[in-house]
């Protein structure tokens, strides 16, 4: 979900003049912990910051989810502000003078925002569903991974608590009664829409924007995460232009920097 927190806007108005500091830090949970939703947020945020050319250090903390002001991970700690979620971070970096979507006209910006919501609405919710509402995945992978930083019996209590919370959310958005196959269908539909929009272009619009970062984050996560079955992977792989899009972004922004 992309929301602009009131507090973020207050901070923006006060610190717009300061440049991006060198010691900006990005906090994420421990490597194995959140798997889907946390690693995808990590990728799309890192991609976005790299696209803007903003340096950031990555720190892993087991309680990153609780440290974040909105409960969403990852979040960045810049100067003395803490900002979480892609939307507010985009606004924040815009206030500091770094923006990717300035070159777009109004109609294109409307489309970009709509597609970002599409990804959030369908892909993110589908990932949460598969991670927490699909019994096989939950019992074999998720619960164990979520509870690793804690000792018994806290690891079980927290895992069950989170599962119950996510189930409630699914019921609220109307996904409560869906089966896993229906969710896979929705993912396919979303990927098809993205694939159609992308076509043969290198990026969704003329220049890389936050939409590219977001789509890359989600797709890369799905492509690289090990699940109990490979159906989701297969469905995403069937869209070749999306695959090459991911590879392109990975090569441009991640491999060159690492080397």
């Amino acid at each position, binding site marked *: 979900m992309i929301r602009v927190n009131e507090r973020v806007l207050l901070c923006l108005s006060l610190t717009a003049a300061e440049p991006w500091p060198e010691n900006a830090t990005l906090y994420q949970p421990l490597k194995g912990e959140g798997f889907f939703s946390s690693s995808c947020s990590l990728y799309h945020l890192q991609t976005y910051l790299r696209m803007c050319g903003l340096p950031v250090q990555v720190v892993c903390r087991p309680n990153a989810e609780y440290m974040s002001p909105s409960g969403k991970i990852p979040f960045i700690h810049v100067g003395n502000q803490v900002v979480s979620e892609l939307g507010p971070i985009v606004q924040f970096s815009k206030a500091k003078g770094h923006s990717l979507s300035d070159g777009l006209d109004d109609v294109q910006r409307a489309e970009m925002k709509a597609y970002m919501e*599409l990804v959030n609405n369908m892909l993110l919710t589908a990932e949460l569903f598969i991670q927490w509402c699909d019994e096989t995945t939950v019992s074999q992978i998720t619960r164990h991974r979520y509870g690793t930083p804690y000792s018994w019996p806290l690891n079980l209590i927290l895992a069950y608590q989170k599962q119950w919370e996510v189930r409630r959310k699914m019921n*609220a958005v109307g996904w409560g009664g869906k089966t896993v196959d229906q969710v896979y269908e929705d993912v396919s539909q979303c990927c098809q829409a993205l694939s159609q929009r992308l076509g043969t272009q290198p990026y969704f619009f003329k220049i890389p924007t936050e939409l590219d970062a977001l789509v890359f984050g989600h797709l890369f996560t799905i492509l690289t995460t090990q699940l109990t079955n490979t159906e989701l992977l297969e469905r995403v792989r069937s869209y070749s232009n999306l695959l090459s899009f991911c590879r392109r972004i990975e090569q441009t922004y991640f491999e060159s920097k690492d080397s």
Partner: protein
Amino acid sequence: MAAPDELFCWEGDWGLPSVSTDCLVVLAYAQFAGAPLKVRKICNPWRSPSGSLPAFRTSQKETLSRTSDIIIHLRKQKFNADYDLSAKEGADSLAFISLMDEKLKPALIYTFWIEPKNYVDVTRRWFAEHMPFPLNFFLPGRMQSQQLEKLRLLQGDERLEAGEELEKELYRDATECLNLLSQRLGSQKFFFGDSPSSLDAYVFGHLAPILRCKLPNGKLQQHLKSLDNLANFCSNILLLYFPRDGRDGCSQKSPPQPDAGDFDNVPSKRRKQLLSAVVALGAMLGYALLTGIVSIQHVQQEALEEPPDLEDMGSHEEEGDG
């Protein structure tokens, strides 16, 4: 085709075929796609096959509740309003529907169910007046807490409460969404050319209640009215596809209504006040009598003619009365 599918939905008001967004979406899509539906307008969600409205009963007696499921079902029955769309337009449809779900829906929930003045003056009154007895006493309140819970889950904040801060945040997102929709629509009749599609149905379903309903706190309404192309879009659809309801809505605004309203209110209010005062007094008096705080003593005439040895008792009685 076999027996037509049935759609149970909320009743309409203010010139709309239904007051609920989801019901409007389904009704609009069915009209656009030309699907023959048997529409049952009810005000009692307990009488619907799924316990909530809208509810769609197919000819195979299967019940669907989600709007997306209903539209998919209609599409499978070859009633497809998106037939003429290109692949890119279909993708855009999906994107804009998601945009409305994320940005506009929370604001709608807030406007109708959480904002105190709107809820008490409009929403609760409408549901209480239209629902049968005894549901009208508790069901609106229950629906409100369900909607608050839903908003809390959507926003991800368990401690969310109605207030100016929340209103500002939600309305900001909603106005941005409305602006984006307006930009996308431009000067066209429908979003994708000359024939309406599922995106038009969704937009109509979300915008029509805001436009038509008279809300005391109508910030969103004002903004929407300022976007001419969206306002015309909604009126256009009403005129073309729901002419009967539009006309009913107009005829309801006939002159006797304001007077009738006042006239109705005053005597019934007085009556209610008088009745409640009488009941309260009667209850207190009854309690006092039953517990003996107040007791009524009968002084019998015969007591004064009692034989002399009971004179003491007689005098005591008199003292008691005095």
